[in-house]
């Protein structure tokens, strides 16, 4: 357990989500273990294990730009931050803000992660510190998307107030520069399954490495010999070795039971298109622009993520509604038709799916290009909105 706490503390730092020596991660089996033995924050967390019925806890201030963003959102929403992206909608629901640490236990009893102003983000797990890492990462992602969406919205209306503008300037200055050059990935077609597994792991590592996805989000697949090889549910894209499921398309086995929740969508894309590779990530500005719609009169306004009927695009790629998985409003119904005529498609509030017919070079380039285009377009829209505001 001690090793697990150290592993996920280190991973938060390696991902750029926390500064060095910031994360405090605790795990409890018969005894409690911490990655940092002499940390005074233990006094706050240690009493929470038993009443919460958990075995893992994490408390850390996120690194910039997330720290500024989370601090701003927590100050503005003293009860709870309410992001509207797909990850939050599906898994977090909302992110409570804990103004008084006496209430941290009761808030964590009802949610996976809580923002504690001044102290950062607290997250819990009942199986492994890995859950804490996932929820922490999810909060950072959701807060980022919400913050930049709100800023754009403010620019189009009364203009950002001073606290928002200050936070925005600081957050932007804390963002890493755009990466424009796609890495050179293994060239396909892949000779055998061994080469295919290696190529998938390589593509996954690079997607994470270029910041096109936080470690957990996304999935990746390859069609080979009438079998879809796809990353397992909950697998980290940067650690795919041993986490890829072969799913024969003749449905002769259910061994793909642990495959990604988007398997159905991937399978249908392969059935409809010449694609043999699919890459799915959650590039942040692509997600932000997918949710940026100014039609206030739209009858589907509150249900864009499932009911949007407009033909919308970002970075020339279509935007479609759809939720995770295979439900009646699942993206498995909307994404595959969109990919019939486009090398990539964006799911509202969720992320980008890109295809290739030979290897992962083309989908990678599609994703990277789209994210850079969306990032540039975001700041264009901000500038236009501010200019309009100034004229008015």
């Amino acid at each position, binding site marked *: 357990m001690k090793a697990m706490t150290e592993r996920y503390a280190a991973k938060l730092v390696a991902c750029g989500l926390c500064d060095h020596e910031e994360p405090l991660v605790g795990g409890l089996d018969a005894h409690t273990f911490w990655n940092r033995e002499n940390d005074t924050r233990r006094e706050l967390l240690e009493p929470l294990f038993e009443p919460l*019925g958990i075995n893992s806890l994490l408390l850390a201030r996120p690194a910039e730009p997330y720290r500024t963003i989370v601090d701003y959102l927590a100050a503005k929403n003293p009860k709870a931050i309410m992001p509207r992206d797909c990850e939050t909608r599906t898994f977090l629901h909302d992110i409570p803000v804990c103004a008084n640490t006496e209430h941290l236990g009761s808030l964590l009893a009802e949610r996976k992660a809580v923002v504690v102003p001044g102290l950062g983000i607290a997250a819990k797990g009942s*199986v492994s510190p890995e859950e804490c890492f996932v929820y922490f990462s999810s909060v950072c992602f959701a807060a980022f998307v919400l913050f930049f969406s709100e800023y754009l919205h403010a620019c189009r209306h009364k203009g950002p107030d001073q606290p928002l503008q200050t936070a925005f300037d600081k957050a932007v200055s804390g963002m890493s520069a755009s990466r424009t050059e796609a890495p050179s990935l293994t060239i396909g077609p892949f000779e055998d399954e061994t080469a295919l597994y290696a190529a998938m792991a390589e593509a996954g590592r690079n997607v994470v490495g270029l910041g096109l996805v936080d470690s957990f989000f996304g999935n990746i697949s390859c069609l080979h010999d009438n079998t879809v090889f796809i990353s397992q549910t909950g697998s980290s894209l940067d650690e795919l070795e041993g986490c890829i499921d072969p799913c024969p398309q003749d*449905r002769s086995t259910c*061994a793909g039971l642990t495959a990604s929740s988007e*398997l159905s969508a991937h399978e249908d894309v392969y059935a409809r298109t010449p694609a043999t590779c699919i890459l799915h990530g959650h590039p942040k500005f692509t997600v932000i622009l997918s949710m940026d719609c100014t039609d206030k009169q739209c009858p589907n306004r509150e249900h864009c993520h499932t009911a949007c009927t407009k033909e919308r695009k970002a970075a020339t790629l279509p935007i479609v509604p759809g939720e995770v998985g295979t*439900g009646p409003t699942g993206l498995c119904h909307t994404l595959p038709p969109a990919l019939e005529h486009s090398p990539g498609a964006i799911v509202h509030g969720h992320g980008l799916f890109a295809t290739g017919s030979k290897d992962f070079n083309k989908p990678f380039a599609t994703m990277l290009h789209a994210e850079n285009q969306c990032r540039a377009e975001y700041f264009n829209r901000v500038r236009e909105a501010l200019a309009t505001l100034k004229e008015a």
Partner: protein
Amino acid sequence: MTKKTCYGWAGKILHLNLATGAAHEETPSGEFYRTNLGGRSLGMHVVMPHFRRQWDDPDMPIVLSAGPLTGTGVPMACTGHITSRSPLTGTVGDDTLTGKFPVTLKRAGYDALVLTGHAPEPTGLIIRDSKIFLINAENLITMETGAVFDSLEEHHELRLAKGADAAICIGPAATHGSLLAAVATDRHHLTGRGGLGLCFAAKNLHFIGVSGSEKIAVHDPEALKRANADIMRLLSASPALMGPYGIRHWGTAAFLDLTHTRRITPTDNFRHTFFALTHKVNAPAMAAQGPFKESGCPDCPVQCIKTLPDGRILPGHDALNHFTALLGNADPDMALDGVAMCFALGLDPVSAGATLACNREISGQGYGRAELSEAVRRMAQGGSLGQGSFRFADECGMPETSMTAKQLELPGFDPRGAVGTGLAYALSTRGGSHSRAFPISHEVLRKPVATDRFTFAGKARIIKLAEDTFAGVESLGVCSLALFAAGLEEYARALRAVTGPVAGKLLTAADVALAGERTCMRERIMNSGNGFHEKDDDLPGRFFSDPGTAGPDQEIPAIDRDDFLKARSAYYAVRGLDGHARPLEEKLASLGLNDDGMTDMDDGGAS
């Protein structure tokens, strides 16, 4: 609670003495419901004062209980619970009650039905909207379960086929005294592992039919709609439940391929962990016989129970494994017929398959179709095989061939390649079962995240927490399969919407977990008081001495005995037990269970 203030619950518990026909309705307080919720927790609450009674003591109750969410439209909230004492194991005897029965019981006006006494003649019970009818069932006692359901439709106007009414019954296995006797519900569901069907036979009760028209009131329908949407979103995102290879499409039989690729398929009575012919008997192979029909619980989005076009049931994973790999059988028809016979005879197919596998190892002789059919029929007639593998192997002088924990046959996941699952088998209060904590969820299915399936690191507390959560969820009337996707966080929100404040306060996830922990501890009290100690929290020696079947890149080592014992000790510490698996006084006090505690046991009925 008064009817006016009662949301979620029906507000009444029916107590029926079958010896006298005397019935009375209990109307518990809000505080009672707040503490005991329903389902499994309520069942243990009722059984607790009698925990030392033998299973066939007329005063030992059988409790059939629904939960506050049962039938409220909350996704996967369709279940109830049966609780008594197990004839097979002597431990607490309980199981999930599925099908239409739990919902209909609530609509008939009751959260629970408590049965005591021994009926003077073979009896059936019908409840129609709080009206009780005891019926002579002499003509049904040798009938197979399907025929009993036919008779209830034909002669007692129960609309079972239309799903308007519901019924449960026992079959010939219970009538003839088999310790593997189960309870059939709605034709396609079988419950009551540990011989709970025999508890009904001991009361001379052969069926229960229910018909109800009451609406289950919900406190805040709009909030419930939002909570349900959150739950449905998570269910839809779950590959294990709703994915193309998930339970929604293939039933739990889908797990057979998963155990195959991980080399944890119990094969040849757990002598091996790999069955090379899995592809001939897996769920897709069964589907070659025609499209499956859904026969799951009413309104459940997952519909885990499937039937074939010819009416035979697609076995669940454990039964399928035990009638195929465990017996070395690659004939899908033979497996389907074997399990269908178990349903017809009211016999637990998991224990039946495991006992046959034990016999196969002892005798060295396999089964053809005719031999299998004959052996199952003999089991249901109460012969030596019908007493379960523990007694049978002991009789044969080869006790090491009984693959059981606390005398209950182990299910279809070999613990050598999933050691947390092995620990959970050993610790399960009802014996060899994965349904108390289901570590396969994280050891194989990667939910909520993956854990290392070959180490015990952290597993003691994980299992304790999962046990509490499962017990809590089963107290709400929610199927534990839902925990593959959603958790107490989501279901507590639905609970608050359904019940509103209870005894002045809204229920929280922590309240549900606490009810679960109290339930688990009560089960421990009952077992400990009946002589179950650390020696019983164990696994068959085979798992510690023999490795599983290795693959090209995969070793399946034997379980390290020292590591197992250390993890078990860690679990005792986490659970609040002493080194002999006895509940600690201070832990009982902290859970408010002093009155249930060891010192008061002598007041708890005959020993």
